[in-house]
């Protein structure tokens, strides 16, 4: 298992990267900045699993909270609204 780099409350940015293959990082969140809500544990990397490899060492997985108004510039809901997404550590960098 890869040791976790982040803890609850840390500011992080999702990498703006567009590699080919099976990815669990939605397009709309790449490049966005959010806050770590919790560490979920470590799981085999799905990008590797999709290639029939074992996905090890396991990647830490976080729930990251993003402000909707920052994700969608034309967001019309309340300013406090958020979206929370699971992101693997190798997609995150400190913000």
């Amino acid at each position, binding site marked *: 298992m890869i040791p976790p780099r982040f803890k609850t409350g840390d500011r992080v940015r999702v990498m703006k990267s567009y590699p080919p293959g099976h990815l669990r990082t939605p397009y709309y969140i790449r490049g966005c900045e959010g806050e770590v809500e919790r560490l*979920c544990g470590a799981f085999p990397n799905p990008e590797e699993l999709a290639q029939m490899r074992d996905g090890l060492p396991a990647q830490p997985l976080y729930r990251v909270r993003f402000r*909707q108004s920052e994700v969608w510039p034309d967001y019309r*809901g309340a300013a406090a609204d*958020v979206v929370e997404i699971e992101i693997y550590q190798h997609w995150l960098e400190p913000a």
Partner: protein
Amino acid sequence: MAKRDLGKYQPLSYFQLMEASLRELLVEKRIVTEAQIAAEVEDMRGRTPERGARVVAHAWSDTAYKKRLLENGTRACEELGLEVPALKLVVVENTPQVHNAIVCTLCSCYPRMLLGIPPDWYKSRNYRSRMVREPRTVLAEFGLKIPRSVQIRVHDSTADMRYLVLPMRPEGTEGWSEERLAALVTRDSMIGVSLPKRPGTRP
């Protein structure tokens, strides 16, 4: 389901044909047996939203259990004898300040062990793309108007966790048994697109 005249020949749809071909091939190659498939289908039919409702009603009745449920959903389900293999459950609590709703934008991840087979709308492109972008409009289409003073938290279940909304206990249910409470908990209220039934409403 629409009534079908079983006496009449019905051509298989694309997906029916694909399912039959794959199933027959798996049996022929001895990867699974017909009996195993039948048992699995039976199991799947046995998983209904009543399982989730039991968890919610227990959490409403027992604050210590609710705390454990919010801390570790999987373990708390096991306490009730609900096996949730391959399911890391995160339970999110609705409060007067926060309303939670669940979507999977990438595919259609869903807490099947607690809610059974997902409704078609949950898997639709419409719901998946719009719930994350304009949740208030989508919820209003379900008949749920959330005041702007309440924060909306959309949970996009993109990876290994599965989500269940713990709705707020309806008023006027003081002293109710868990069984009676569970009857108020609807599937949609555990996805976060509606509220539980109110006491006195018809089923």
